[in-house]
């Protein structure tokens, strides 16, 4: 009788000790390995195109990333376009939605700002507007865009009082040209292939 009682007491005591030990370990780990901030925000931010254009209605990509983490829709980024929406949907496990037209359309070709320098009056308004400090210049001095740093966000176009800023498409040269994928729809059965060829010749 007493032996059985002892067994129960030992078992309960042992479990209690174990509970205390694991509790302590978990408590320590919770403090020691605490994650600062919301890691999902950084992951979302990495997927955004970082043009900092504000077309989504937030003052930059990071704020929009924070908003998305807080439940904002993922289809408000025109520079990122469908590709970004797809990646965000994959990351967050939600259904991809078509781009919200309210925030603008995806650009067909990437553009870069260009200042017609002889028309520039040196008002510095575009410099203040540029979110990535890609415009060089000083008051009453001509300004110019550092093309490599320009994200093509269009934010400098509006403030220019003399309309001397153009958004020009990024030129293609040997360094950034690459082969396009072979045209699809070439995998046809023999009879269709013949028709295709005839159409080609015509």
């Amino acid at each position, binding site marked *: 009788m007493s032996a059985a009682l002892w067994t129960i007491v030992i078992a309960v005591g042992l479990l209690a000790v174990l509970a205390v030990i694991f509790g302590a370990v978990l408590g320590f780990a919770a403090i020691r390995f605490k994650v600062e901030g919301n890691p999902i925000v950084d992951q979302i931010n990495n997927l955004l195109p*970082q043009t*900092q254009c504000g077309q989504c209605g937030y003052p930059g990509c*990071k704020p929009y990333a924070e908003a998305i983490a807080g439940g904002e829709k993922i289809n408000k980024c025109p520079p990122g376009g469908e590709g970004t929406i797809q990646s965000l949907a994959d990351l967050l496990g939600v259904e991809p939605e078509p781009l919200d037209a309210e925030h603008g359309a995806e650009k067909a070709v990437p553009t870069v700002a260009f200042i017609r320098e002889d028309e520039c009056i040196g008002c510095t308004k575009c410099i203040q507007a540029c979110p990535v400090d890609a415009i060089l210049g000083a008051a009453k001095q001509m300004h110019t865009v550092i093309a490599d740093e320009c994200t093509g966000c269009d934010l400098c176009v509006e403030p220019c009082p003399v309309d001397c800023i153009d958004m020009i498409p990024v030129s293609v*040269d040997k360094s950034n*040209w*690459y082969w396009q*994928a072979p045209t699809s729809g*070439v995998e*046809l059965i023999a009879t269709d292939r013949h028709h295709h060829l005839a159409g080609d010749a015509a």
Partner: protein
Amino acid sequence: MTNLIRLHNFDGGIHPAENKAQSTATPVQQACLPAELVLPLHQHIGAAAKPLVKAGDQVLKGQLIAAADGFVSVPLHAPTSGTIAAVEPRAVPHASGLQEDCIVIIPDGAERWIEHQSLYQQLGLEHLNDISPRQLTEHIRQCGIAGMGGAGFPTAVKLSTGQREIHTLILNGAECEPYITADDMLMRERASEVIQGAQILLHIVGAKGCMIGVEDNKPQAIAALNTALVELGEEHHIDVVTIPTKYPSGGEKQLIKILTGEEVPAGGIPADLGLVCQNVGTAAAIYRAVAFGEPLISRITTLTGDAMQQPGNWEVLIGTPVSHLLQLAGYQPQKRERVIMGGPMMGFALPGLDLPITKTSNCLLAPTEKELPPNDIAMACIRCGMCADACPADLLPQQLYWFSKSQEFDKAEQHNIFDCIECGACSYVCPSHIPLVQYYRYAKGAIREERAAQAKAERARQRFEERLARQEREVAEKEAKRKARAEAAAKAQAAKPAVAADSAAATSNAPAADGNAELEKLQKQFDAAQSALAKTKEKLEAARADESMADKVPLFESALNKTQDKIKDLAKQLAAAKKAAKAAPVAASAATTDTDKGDPNSPERLKRKWETAQARLDTALKRLAEAKEQGLDTVDALQTGVDKQQERVNEAKAAYDASVADGAAAGATVGGSTAPQATGAQTADNSAADQAANIEALNKKILAQQDRVAKMQERLDMAKAEGLDTVDALTLGVQKQQDKLLQLQQELAALAPAGTTSNEAS
């Protein structure tokens, strides 16, 4: 030694029809000069060369016309003498058909060489071993040599192996691609150049031995190389290694595998294995550069294909248009015009025929439609796996195809798509005629573009965040400055009453005469002290913000206090000096107004005084505005200064107005001459001063005479009233006096117009 080398094999590979005999029947011919040469500035891997010539310049054969732009770049030399027609964008021989900057030369036909001599002569040395590898590499760089096998990598860069020790040099004479025979003919006809080039390369990289790998389908080239080695007649460590014919044994990594059994690691270079691999054509070019000082201006190009009536090899100048060469080889235009630059496996169809030959153009292939049918329409992949068997890089072409097609680029990357050498073996064996290599090229390009976009986005993110941080910092700094200023102003306000008493004492001491100079000096000192104060404050802020400078904070604080005290003192003195200065000019102006009364110069002087006072008032107002804006403690002092200055201005103005009015009044008593006199007085100068003095004297005389006349008249009237007998005498006297007055007035009238005219003349 040849027997001792054990050959290895690489996996995969194919055996396409060689088609080399057509172009080896005739020896290498010299291509005649074309009408113009077009030299793209970017014929190599790396940065485009920078042009050194402009349209209209005369150039000599071998003259440097474009300089290398950076380490990984290659200079460009004029292939013949002639005139630069233009430096402009022209279509370049590239799959994209894009335009790039080119130098266009119109040959003069004289082929005049620029002065050139061998590197031995240049350095005054006799033997190769006397020249340092560095000098040789530099010479190769200056001679514009880029890999002539097809890729065009700058040779000098490839030879700069840095810390890696090189044990073997490999010369690539495999030339595995069908149709191409440029290296074959080079080795047959210029074997000794290749061998001597190999010796130079051996010396540069410090390798123990050299292997020249040649496929066994070129027995004449192998024989020629061996003969040349025998003729060399000295000890050497060069082996001509015959390797079995298999495409693509001429790939750098494949040739290394065959000759050494080692594999170049993914993402690595042969130098990691202690190897350097060069094309035989490059070796020959290096020999010519060192032995004759000739830069790379020509190369051997194969012209072949059934559409050519006389296929063969030509030595062509870099920049020769393709159309010119096709003419030489008897090209018969086809229904579907198709000229391929490079071989049938790795070459690309030229978008046009007016494109130039570059340093890497080893072959122009003009096939008939029957000979090389255009790509058949692709069918579905049947997963036969033949591509995987053929792949010389041990990749999984089928998987890569699926991933590239569905744009799953990350998976393609995981399957090592960047190890694909784009040899085309998979496409060759594909029973479904799928253009596999085109898919891989597309995937590689898309991945590179994505990487570039990601790198750019990352940079944009950093710049954006740094900008935000900067803006925050600026706001904080402004806030801190404003606080500091407000504090300083409060302190100064508290200290003010005590100061006020002292300033009075200082005032009385200041001599009024040099008050203005004193004032300016004080103002300057005051300004300097102010700026010093601002600086000290900034330093103090910085020190407070920075913990490491914490021990300096008390130091700065005491300095700040000192400067503040100094400013207070100066403010006192300044206020005193201003008071004195105010008193002095007022007195002075009063004095001048008195003494100058009646002086025609005085209005001018007074006006100037008024203007100066006004200017001072403006400055004072400006200072006051500034002080108010900055919240300085001198606002009150400046305010009183401004008020006083305002008073002075008013006084000066009043004085001036008065003097003008006086002048007018004085003139009026003299009669008709008033107006000219007034104008004369206003614009009076030194030459008119005497005149004015005379007039003045006359005026006085007239006044006196009038007095006398008046007195005489009085006496006469008295005498008449009393009935005295002196009436007649007095009447005569009055008449006489009146005559005299008239005379004086006439004199004055005569003088005044003269004075006016003289003034006008001046």
